[in-house]
């Protein structure tokens, strides 16, 4: 019983990070119809700066603020400085440019910080809380949950309850009609990149102490998993990203525990293939995705 609870807790915590990172991918996809292959590297770059703040001040809260601000700044730079000049005729263009950006960013991080793993301390205990004989979850897991829940709720409120969110959605769905109604679509695109990069950076920072460790390549595996999550949930669906993220976190944890670490990625791949065969638009996508 205790093991099941612990597994579930660990799986959900892992999944929450996947969900957050996948959400970042979905945000950019919805805003610009670009699958942002540079997201891992961008997020890790933001996490490195947050790490410097963490080491300097010892405050995890300050590190979170840093990762959000720096992430948004990196998103701004990527969109204004690079991605908006990429011709959108073929989706391959932006993918290739993004992969180029990944090489530059990881290279820079390697030069500046070295290629080795930096130890990052956990701000809360990782020892599970005990209720009687039952081990439930660790305080850090709980903390990750709360942060992810707050961010997801905040994004949901932004998109459904505010004028800015409405303008961003209108730009994403139909940029011509949005422009005719006075929405500054290119500004909304930039905002979409900033929001996405901030969220992605936060996901990496949360996963660094327990899951990833900090190195220039920390984001690679997370990106692969989260990309799968986004595809399974539906690239168009923020709700899908969150639900699929949690599901895959649990699946990965259970499979890894039962059959070993090598089986985990295979299980995810199988799930991806099944979803692509049966419901290629993603489980939670309501309609056929609009192509830009």
């Amino acid at each position, binding site marked *: 019983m205790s093991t099941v609870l612990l597994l579930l807790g660990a799986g959900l915590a892992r999944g929450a990070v996947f969900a957050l990172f996948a959400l970042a991918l979905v945000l950019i996809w919805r805003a610009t119809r670009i699958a942002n292959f540079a997201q891992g590297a961008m997020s890790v770059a933001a996490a490195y700066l947050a790490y410097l703040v963490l080491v300097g001040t010892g405050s995890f809260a300050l590190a979170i603020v840093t990762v959000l601000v720096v992430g948004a700044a990196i998103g701004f730079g990527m969109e204004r400085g690079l991605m908006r000049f990429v011709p959108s005729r073929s989706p391959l263009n932006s993918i290739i440019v993004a992969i180029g950006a990944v090489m530059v960013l990881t290279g820079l991080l390697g030069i500046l910080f070295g290629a080795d793993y930096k130890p990052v301390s956990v701000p809360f205990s990782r020892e599970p809380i005990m209720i009687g004989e039952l081990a439930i979850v660790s305080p850090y897991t709980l903390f990750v949950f709360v942060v992810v829940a707050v961010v997801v709720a905040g994004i949901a409120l932004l998109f459904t309850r505010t*004028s800015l969110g*409405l*303008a961003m*959605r*209108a730009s994403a*769905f*139909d940029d*011509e*009609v*949005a*422009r*005719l*109604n*006075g*929405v*500054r*679509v290119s500004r909304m695109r930039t905002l979409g990149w900033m929001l996405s990069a901030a969220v992605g950076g936060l996901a990496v920072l949360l996963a660094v102490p327990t899951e990833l460790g900090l190195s220039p390549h920390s984001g690679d595996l997370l990106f692969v998993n989260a990309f799968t999550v986004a595809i399974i949930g539906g690239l168009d669906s923020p709700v899908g990203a969150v639900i699929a993220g949690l599901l895959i976190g649990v699946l990965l944890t259970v499979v890894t525990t039962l059959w070993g670490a090598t089986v985990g990625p295979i299980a995810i791949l199988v799930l991806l293939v099944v979803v692509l065969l049966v419901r290629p638009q993603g489980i939670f996508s309501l*309609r056929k995705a609009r192509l830009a």
Partner: protein
Amino acid sequence: MTEPATGQAATATRTALSLEGVVAGYGHDPALHGVDLDLPEGSIVAVVGANGAGKSTLLRTISGLLPPSSGDIRLGGESLAGVPVEERIRRGIVHVPERRQVIAELTVEENLRLGALWRRDKAERASDIAEVYEFFPALAARRTKPGSTLSGGERQMLAIGRAYMAHPKVMLLDEPSLGLAPKVVADIMAMLAWLRTEYGLTILLVEQNVRTALSIADTGVVLNLGRVVATRPAAELEADEQLRHLYLGF
């Protein structure tokens, strides 16, 4: 105003929108070859013509989606050259595009809000939405439903309601009657006529449905292969058999 602003009365009133020698199009062969057009304030002008006459291009050029290669477009005497699309609604031009007029993923209410997002007067925006619902009760009943669930007529009502939310000076409409039942078309035309009398709105209507368009218009403009071939009072144009045969096919 007892008599609708016909060609003659137009010279007496101020000009809301004017085009001077506008050339525009896609690629090497322009769709508009030097179009001149004058819209007196508070008038309804119908641009008619066959498929491919350049009607939609004309509206896309005025709303800025397609920059003209030469010529000038003036709103209240001020040139719109270099004014981006998203700025033009703030100047008072609103464009109701053809067919996919509403955003299918947004609810009816969100589509309406979208029309006035740029306005700062929040309280008035809410009362404007109420007004649109009053005029189109069908929309009120579906305010939380996504645009994709609306019928063609409801979509057109929503598109016009959204345009109204912008408090425009000039409204451009691209084939508002396309694919709609006669009763719905009549309702929509009535709404346009009411907007003109109530708010002094200037309307530029592009239509293949010539009779309907001319029935509410003051002036009819015949566009053929990107050129204005006739500008007449609407009633006169409807009666001119030769023109009708030549360019309008009935």
